[in-house]
């Protein structure tokens, strides 16, 4: 029985060695199942925001705040136009799930329950909330769009101070 199994094991190990090579052949790794990054690059990025403290402020139809600036810079790095949507978190998350939005922000903490439904970046900044507790701030991305998430996190790693 032991003898019969070892060729399978050898073939498997060979297969494991091939996997990284295979991934080398794919230009982008990881790949987006729905191709978000490809659509956004040199195109339009649909961003949903919820007003929240200094992160996102809406004044006279103008969007301001630290996260608005980060997103503008990110869009520029991808050579993309930003299409803004302002709404409540629940609506924005539903739109992310349906693929109608590419990115959601608004002082969302890393403990958000939405992370069960959609993708979440690593925390890139912190905020001291009303109770004096430090909360870590994240952005939300469509579920499973791992190339796009990789791009967002790489941008945040380069431009933001880690919390």
């Amino acid at each position: 029985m032991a003898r019969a199994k070892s060729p399978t094991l050898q073939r498997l190990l060979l297969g494991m060695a091939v996997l990284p090579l295979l991934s080398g052949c794919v230009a982008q790794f990881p790949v987006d199942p729905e191709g978000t990054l490809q659509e956004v690059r040199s195109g339009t990025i649909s961003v949903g925001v919820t007003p929240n403290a200094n992160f996102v402020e809406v004044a006279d139809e103008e969007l301001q705040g630290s996260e608005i600036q980060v997103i503008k810079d990110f869009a520029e790095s991808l050579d993309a136009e930003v299409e803004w949507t302002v709404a409540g978190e629940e609506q924005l998350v539903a739109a992310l799930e349906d693929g109608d939005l590419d990115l959601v922000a608004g002082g969302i903490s890393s403990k958000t329950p939405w992370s069960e439904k959609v993708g979440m970046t690593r925390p890139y900044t912190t905020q001291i909330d009303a109770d004096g507790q430090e909360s870590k701030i994240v952005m939300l991305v469509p579920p499973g769009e791992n190339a796009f998430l990789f791009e967002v996190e790489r941008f945040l790693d380069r431009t933001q101070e880690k919390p």
Partner: protein
Amino acid sequence: MTSSPGTHLPHEQKQLMRRAAKLEWISIGYAACTIALVALVVGNSQAMRTAWIEDMLSVLPQLAFLIALRWTRKTRKPRHPYGYHRSMGAGHLVAGVALLVVGAMLAFESMSALVKAEHPTIGTVNLFGQTIWQGWPMILVMTVIVVPAVILGRLKIKVAEPLHNKLLYADSKMAKADWQTNAASIVGVAGIGLGIWWLDSVAALVISIGILKDGWDSTRSATSDLLDSRASALDSTDPHPLVLRIEEHLARIDWVREAAVRARELGQVQHIEVFVVPRSDKVDVKQVAGICAELEELDWQAYDVVVIPVESIPEHLDRVPAKE
């Protein structure tokens, strides 16, 4: 009939038991390390989570063996006339049922992820200023931890076979097949990386089916032993070779016209009952005691041999053909 204590095992088998216990302790220690290591990288992959839970479950038969081992060392007493060998069977059953239940839950979870078309999200880690996709450390960890597990499994199977311990045997077979779990989880993660979201749930389903199969095999084998099915070889339902040897031995005895053997497994050893139909109406007690002693000497597994002279062999037993 010699009245042996619960530790009734020859020196060589005692050594093997000690070795088995040592290997099981090493296995548990190793499992603790892998569980901690995988916890660091488990992430959102269903296949990784399932493989992680499988790692935790793999400890169950090992714990069951070590606990049962303490019990089997106890001596027989009036309240427990057969000794404590069956504790191995009880442990085997508990581990089997646990594997069945958790395996079914995991299979359901991966199927529901498939039906709901959940796309697993795997982000990045920042290592020394480099943004690295989390899938890479996952694949690395799952590759590295597989080798010692398989080696341990191979070592254990070499002890389980001569000991004829089904719990240990089931555990070593699980460990030997552990690489399949790790391979499946790597395929799942690589699938996510290649944008094939469903490959992750399919890999998780494959792993859960493996757990279910282990659970089913253990539950069936343990239940069959606890129901006193005929002693059988480790991996089959054929009669245990010892039963055949006892039958051969009985066929050679002059004063026995017909005989039949009833053997049931008690962990390592077998409880043997022999029915004999003598050629004449009178049987000497010494003759009966003689067979008992001869049979117990035949093999260390023949434990607690009882010889019962009868007028005719009970209908449900296979007869040993009379010597011409």
